[in-house]
């Protein structure tokens, strides 16, 4: 989907919301942006498909609740990715707590590892080793930096957000967002180089 298609969909969604046709707006949204939201969630959540599916569903539920308050001040894509960003960070924080609990209860660790195994296998099946290393390095970034990098470069060329849009989503200045993006890319590169030695 190109930028003009995206603008057209945005206009249609906004018109449907303004007219109060929320169901139609939701159909348009899912048709145009579900792949984007799911892809973003998958990459931020380190390729955990089942978690990404849950989070994508939560994102669209939030959208349904927020239809009445949507004023069209940002594009629909930015609105969706802003919700996805916050939901993913929440999910990562919850996941971290869950892992801590699992560490304390040794009996459950085996079951947890069993759940993680297919993901490792999936990663191992990647054609290029470089891509595997990149995905691995991406997982080593902190959650917010990872989200920023993915919003900028990891959602497909047609949907990539500008630094200004990312700054609005994260709630920082454009200069700060740009600096964080540069630092995150440098760190990614360093992690990959360190891992390669």
């Amino acid at each position, binding site marked *: 989907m190109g930028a003009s298609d995206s603008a057209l969909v945005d206009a249609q969604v*906004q018109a449907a919301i303004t007219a*109060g046709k929320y169901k139609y707006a*939701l159909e348009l949204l*899912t048709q145009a942006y579900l792949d984007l939201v*799911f892809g973003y969630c*998958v990459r931020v959540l380190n390729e955990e498909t089942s978690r990404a*599916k849950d989070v994508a569903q939560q994102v*669209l539920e939030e959208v349904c609740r927020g239809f009445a308050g949507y004023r069209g001040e940002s594009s629909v894509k930015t609105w969706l990715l802003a919700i996805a960003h916050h939901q993913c960070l929440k999910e990562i924080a919850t996941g971290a707590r869950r892992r801590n609990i699992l560490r304390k209860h040794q009996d459950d660790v085996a079951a947890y590892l069993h759940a993680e195994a297919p993901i490792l296998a999936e990663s191992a099946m990647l054609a290029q080793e470089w891509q595997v290393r990149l995905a691995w390095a991406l997982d080593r970034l902190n959650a917010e930096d990872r989200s920023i990098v993915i919003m900028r470069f990891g959602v497909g060329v047609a949907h990539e957000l500008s630094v200004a849009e990312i700054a609005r989503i994260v709630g920082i200045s454009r200069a700060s967002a740009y600096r964080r993006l540069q630092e995150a890319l440098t760190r990614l*590169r360093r992690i990959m180089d360190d891992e390669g030695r």
Partner: protein
Amino acid sequence: MRGDEREEYGEEAQDVIEGLRRLAHRSETPPDLRPAILAQGERLLPPQKKRLARWWTVIGVWRPHPLAWGPVVAGAFFIAGVLTPWPRADVSLRDTLSEKSPAPAAPLLSKESTEDRLAPPTMPSWPPKQEMRQQIESAPPPPGIRPRCGTASPASGIRRISENGDSHPAGGIG
């Protein structure tokens, strides 16, 4: 966008950026996700809006964009200005007043005095000085008033008043 990245993020970040872009094409959305979301959405969606609420939403969307509503408001005022019957500039004020003046007052005013009163503001409100003098000289003195000095005529007294601007009685001074 791609042309700017080399300058913005440096040469060494380029392969990372390309790798991230390749990662973007890897995931496939599960086919059952969309129907699940639509089914869940049916329960969560707010009720259909009423007509008034829809208008309110439209205004709410317009409010933060003055470039959108500014011309609309200006256009509305222009149309209102065109449709409103303003007093036309070529119709004189006299006609307007004579139409509006009450009927009993009309016979009391002579035509000339009405014309004088309704003269446009660009004309002097008083007749020229020479004309006024002639009127006063030719007019007979009021029946109850006689000049105290035989030499002083009412006209000379009047002349003094008009020259000095004082309000002495005619022939009283000098």
